[in-house]
C-alpha cells in the first residue's frame, strides 16, 4: 500500500476517535472531553493534508479529476471549515455528523484505485485553475459542513421527539453552524466561479471554460444561496435552511466526486 494511504488511514482513525469521543460524550451527558475530540479532529486534518500532498506528488501534479485527490481534498476542506468556523463562532456543535462525512470521504479516497481517475485527467492547469479548484473545494467543504449542521438539526429534532436522554447540541448552535457554513460556501464557490469566468475570458473569450464540474458548482452555489435566503422565511426558516444546505452538500459532493463526465445523451 502506498505511503499516502497509510497516512490517510491515520487520518481516518483520528476522525474515528473524534467521532467516538463525541458519541460517548453525548450518551453520558458530559460536556468535557471536547478538547480531546477537537485535538483528534485537528490531527486528522494534518494527516489528510499530508496524504493529499503525497498523492499530488505521486501523480506528478494536482488533478482535480483524480478521485483520490478529490475525496481527500473534500475531507480536508470539510474538517478544516468545521474547525475554522468552530473557532470563529465559539461552538463546535455538529462535529459528530461532520466527522462521519469526513470519514466517509477519507475511506472513499483510501479505497479508490490509481486508475480510477477520469480518462481526461490530463489537464494543463495554470495558476488560476489551481486557485479556482482550491476555492471550489473550500466551497464544497463549507456546503458539506452546512449540510452536516442541517442533518444534525434533523437528528436532534427526532431524538427530542422521542424523549431521548442523549445530551443533544443546542438548536441555535446548529443553526449558527448551518448559516455560517452556508455563507462561507457561498463566498468560496462564488470566488471560484469568478476566477473560472476570468480565466475562461482570458484563455477562450468565454465566461466559463466548459468543464461540467463548473456547472455543478454553480448549481451548488444556487442551492446554498437558497439556504441562506430561507432564513428570511416567516415560518420554519431553520428547517428550510437545513434541508437546502443538505441538498447543496449533496450536489457539491456529486459534482466533484461522481459526475464529471455524466451526460444523459452522450455526444457521439
Amino acid at each position, binding site marked *: 500500500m502506498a505511503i499516502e494511504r497509510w497516512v490517510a488511514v491515520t487520518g481516518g482513525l483520528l476522525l474515528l476517535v473524534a467521532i467516538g469521543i463525541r458519541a460517548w460524550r453525548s450518551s453520558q451527558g458530559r460536556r468535557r472531553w471536547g478538547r480531546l475530540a477537537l485535538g483528534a479532529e485537528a490531527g486528522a486534518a494534518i494527516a489528510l493534508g499530508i496524504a493529499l500532498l503525497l498523492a499530488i506528488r505521486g*501523480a*506528478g*501534479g494536482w488533478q482535480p479529476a483524480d478521485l483520490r485527490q478529490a475525496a481527500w481534498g473534500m475531507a480536508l476542506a470539510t474538517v478544516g471549515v468545521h474547525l475554522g468556523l468552530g473557532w*470563529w*463562532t465559539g461552538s463546535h456543535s455538529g462535529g459528530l455528523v461532520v466527522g462521519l462525512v469526513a470519514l466517509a470521504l477519507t475511506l472513499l479516497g483510501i479505497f479508490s484505485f490509481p486508475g480510477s481517475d477520469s480518462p481526461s485527467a*490530463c*489537464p*494543463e492547469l*495554470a495558476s*488560476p485553475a489551481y486557485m479556482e479548484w482550491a476555492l471550489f473545494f473550500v466551497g464544497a467543504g463549507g456546503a458539506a459542513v452546512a449540510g452536516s449542521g442541517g442533518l444534525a438539526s434533523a437528528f436532534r429534532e427526532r431524538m427530542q421527539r422521542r424523549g431521548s436522554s442523549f445530551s443533544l447540541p443546542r438548536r*441555535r448552535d446548529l*443553526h*449558527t453552524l448551518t*448559516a*455560517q457554513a452556508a*455563507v*462561507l460556501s*457561498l*463566498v468560496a464557490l*462564488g*470566488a471560484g*466561479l*469568478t476566477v473560472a*469566468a*476570468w*480565466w475562461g*475570458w*482570458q*484563455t*477562450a*473569450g*468565454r*465566461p466559463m471554460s466548459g468543464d*461540467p464540474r463548473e*456547472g*455543478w458548482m*454553480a*448549481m451548488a452555489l*444556487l*442551492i446554498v*444561496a*437558497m439556504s*441562506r*435566503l*430561507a*432564513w*428570511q*422565511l*416567516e415560518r420554519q*426558516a431553520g428547517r428550510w*435552511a437545513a434541508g437546502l444546505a443538505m441538498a447543496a452538500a449533496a450536489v457539491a459532493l456529486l459534482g466533484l466526486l461522481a459526475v464529471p463526465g*455524466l*451526460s*444523459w*445523451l*452522450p*455526444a*457521439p
Partner: protein
Amino acid sequence: MTDHSLPSGKFRFDPLSALWRIAASPQTLMVLLALVGLALALGITVPQIPAGEAQNPQAWLAAQPGAAGPFGGLIDALRLHDLFHAFWFHLLLVLVGLALFVWTVDAAELAWLATRRRSWAAGDLALWGRAAPQASLSTDITAAEAQTRLEAFLTENRYRWVALPNASPGNLVAGRRGLFLWAWPLALGAVLAALLGLAIVANWGWQNGDWLPADGDELAVGHGQPLTVRLDRYGPSQESGDLDQQRSQITWLPDGGTPLQDVAVLGHPARFEGVALRQMGHVPIVQMSVRDASGRSLALQAGGDEPGTAGAVEVAFASAEDTPLVFLADRDLFLALDFEPHCRGGGPALRVDLLGGGGQDRQTLGTLQESGTVTGGGLQVDVDLAYRPILRVDHRPAVGLVVAGMALAVAALTVGWLASPRLVRLVLASSGDVTRVQILVPSPLRGNRWLWGLVAQLQEALADGD
C-alpha cells in the same frame, strides 16, 4: 405599505405594489433560483449544440443517440439541446433580474435608513416584517429600569440607538457597523450587473472559429471590422523554452492604418480596438516517413490526400483532441497519432500507435516529446515534430462586465459577512411583575451569528445588580 389616508373598510388593489411584494418575497427568489438550477442541471446532462455545428444544428441533432427516444419530442420542444438560447431560459433570467432589482432597492432602503442621520419613523418598521421575535428575554425589574439598563448597555458597546418616536415607551432601534449594511445591496446590484453582462454577451459580439496558422499566414477578421491579423512567428519566449510559454508574435493590419505588432500568450490575449486575439493552445504538425526492416521507404496517405508516394507526409492536427490516421498502403496498416498537450508534470507528448486487423489490434510504437524515431512491428517511423498555435479572434465587450460584477458581488458579500453589521429592534412590555424584552432582527440579517451573543449580553445587563 399601508395607505393610512384611505377610509377604513375600502380596499384598492394596486398591481404595482402587489408585483413588488411578490418580487420582494424570499419564496419568489428561491423558486426562481431553483428553476435556474434545474436549467443548469439540464444544460449539463443534455449535450448542447457545439458552436461549430450552429450552422446546421439539425444534422447534429439527428446524430445524437436517444434523439428519437421517448423524450426526443420534449427535448426538441423545450430546446434543451440549445438551452442557453431558448426563449423560456431568457424569460427566467429576466424574472431573476426583476427580483434582484427589487431586492437591491429594498436592501439599499434598509441600509439608507440605518445609516442616515434622521430618526426612524413608525412606517419604517415594516422592514422588520411580520415574523415572530427572534429572541425574547424576561426580567423582574421594572420596564423603566430595564430601559435605562438597555440604553446604558447599548451606549457602552458603541451601538447607535434611537427611541422610536410616536411609539410606546421602551421601543428602541439599535445598530452597529451600520455602514456595512451597504454591502448587501452592493452585492445584489453587482449580481444584477453580471446578469446584464451575460444577456449582452449572448446577444452582442462575435467569436471566430479556431485559426491554426503557419508563420506568415494572414486572417481577415471579418464582422465588418476593417482589420487583418498576421502571425509573424510562433515560438518560445526568450526567457523560457517551455512550450506552455510559447508566444504568437502577430501584427495587426488595419485597413489604411499603421500596422501594429503585438504578442499573444496563453491567458494574455493581444488586443486592438476591442478585438482580442487569444492563444488557446497549440497542435502538432508532424512530418512523417516510414521505412521497413530493409530500409525501404513506404508510401503513406494522410487524411483525404491522394494515395501517397514513398517519402515524407505532413499530418496536421485539426485540434488538440484530434487523432489523425496515416494509411500504409503497402502493409494495409494504419498509424494513429494521439497528442497529449501536457500530462502529469511532463511536456506535451505525441503517441504513435500501429493499428491492424480493422482497428482491433493496437500496438503502441512509442511516445515522443520532440522529433525522433519510434520502431516496432518491423517498421521505423521518423517523426519531425513542430507546433502551430490555436488562435481565436473575438469581440465580446460585455464579458468584462460579467467578471467585474461577479468579483464585486463576492467582495461585497465577504466584507458584509466578516464585518457582520448589526441592526435590532428592542420592544419592552410589562406584564405584572415581569418585564419582557423582545428582540427583532430585520429579515436580511436573520441567521447571523451575533444575535445569540447579543442576547446573552443583554440578559447579563438586565440581571446586573439584582
